[in-house]
């Protein structure tokens, strides 16, 4: 079980727009000061894939692996691991953050009504994506 973290992304100090992927310059106003903040973690599922081939052993051992893209209510599009049954296009989702086995903070998307604790099982053996 991995600790579940709030969705924290960079927000522009000057214009308040949420930015993703992480960057040094705001794409809206070119502001140069961005601060990581907890933001609303709701969104809409844009697309998804079931992956069958990977370049890394960590995923190769766990294939197939579900991945989703989500448009957050705060604006940005994120690519995220998916936890749960096969997703449906357009469904309401929530996005949380966990540490992956390489200590990277990664995004996990799951159904809006699912228990977010499920995201903590993603990188536990046999508890991950299907």
């Amino acid at each position: 079980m991995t600790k579940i973290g709030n969705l924290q992304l960079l927000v522009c100090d000057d214009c308040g727009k949420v930015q993703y992927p992480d960057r040094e310059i705001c794409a809206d106003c070119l502001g140069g000061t961005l601060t990581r903040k907890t933001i609303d973690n709701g969104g809409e599922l844009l697309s998804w894939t079931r992956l069958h081939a990977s370049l890394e052993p960590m995923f190769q051992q766990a294939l197939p692996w579900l991945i989703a893209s989500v448009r957050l209510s705060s604006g940005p599009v994120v690519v995220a691991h998916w936890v749960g049954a096969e997703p449906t296009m357009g469904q309401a989702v929530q996005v949380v953050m966990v540490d992956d086995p390489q200590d990277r903070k990664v995004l996990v998307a799951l159904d809006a009504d699912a228990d977010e604790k499920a995201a903590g099982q993603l990188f536990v053996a046999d508890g991950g994506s299907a």
Partner: protein
Amino acid sequence: MSQDYSGVALLAPTTVGYQRYSDHGAAWFIGRCVADLLAGAGVAKDELDGLAVSSMTLAPDSAVSLTEHFGLTTRWLEHVPMGGAAAVVSLRRAARAIQAGDARVIACVAGDTNRKGGFRDAIENFSVFSRQAVYPYGAAGPNVVFALITRAYMAEFGATREDFGRICIAQRENASHNPVALLRDPLDMQTYLDARPIAEPVHLFDCVLPCAGAEGFLVTSVERARSLDVPFVEILAVDERHNAFPEDPVQLRGGWAMFRDELYAAAGLGPGDMNFVQAYDDYPVIALQQLEDLGFCDKGAGPEFVRHTELTCTGGGLPLNTCGGQLSAGQAGFAGGHLGTVEAIRQLTGQVLGQQVPDASVGIVSGYGMVNYDRCLCSAAAILRRADS
């Protein structure tokens, strides 16, 4: 209205390779391509005073390093790290240099090697954004990005796997006549559909085969081309856009949709006048989007279009990727972006490696490159015409 591109000639379409793997470096493929295209045009090495290079495996070297490596002294030099859009971007810049008199003979070359194991590093470190926000999600690089785009396109416009299959099968038929294509065996729909999944809905035959190779052509003045007495092509129109439609949540259209009306107007021609299309085909969904965004059918009508249009060289419809495209010839790194332009010049000058499109006098080539995060950022297109027609 921009100045036209008259007085500029494209010639000496040149291909080096293709090999699945190579122990040579990118410089070898680029250098052999320069040698072959000079020989093909009958131009002495000393006359070459411009060079535009595109490569993903040349680092830490660049076009600068190659001048010393190849013993060239140039007065015009471009490094164009724009992947699938680099050929069209290079020819556009080179054309302006020729018109302005900044250079007399320019070689536009893309080349890459493919060493065993080299692919993983290239994928992981393709961009700062992808290293952070795509690679950790499955470690599969562009397959994930284009699977997401493909599924969204299918949901939005009713495309089926068979529609993508029609593109792959037609291009394989085109490749079957091209001796340098790596994949030449006939492909039928059942084999296409039965292929193993890579990143659903993307399956094996929707993916390009990474390989080593180079593609290049020369740009000079029409006057010099005539004196060389080699067949050449002229540029009727060319344009490019970068980071087009950033507000679209999923890339279901490319920058071509922003400039295609101006492009055709500048050429004085319409989509119906094109004898072929060379469309960037890293995945068939992108080729399909180009058919729409370049005006061959309405947005979203691509699936219906390919159900009713013959895409082979001699089918009488709209020949697409007439040498087989990257999906069948192989993707020699960034040379994959030059493949379509080189093939367009071949078709328009009667120098094909494979099958000739009958009576080809004008065609369109489009480029698409550089997946930085969740989409490719560069799109470009050129309308080319056989000279003296």
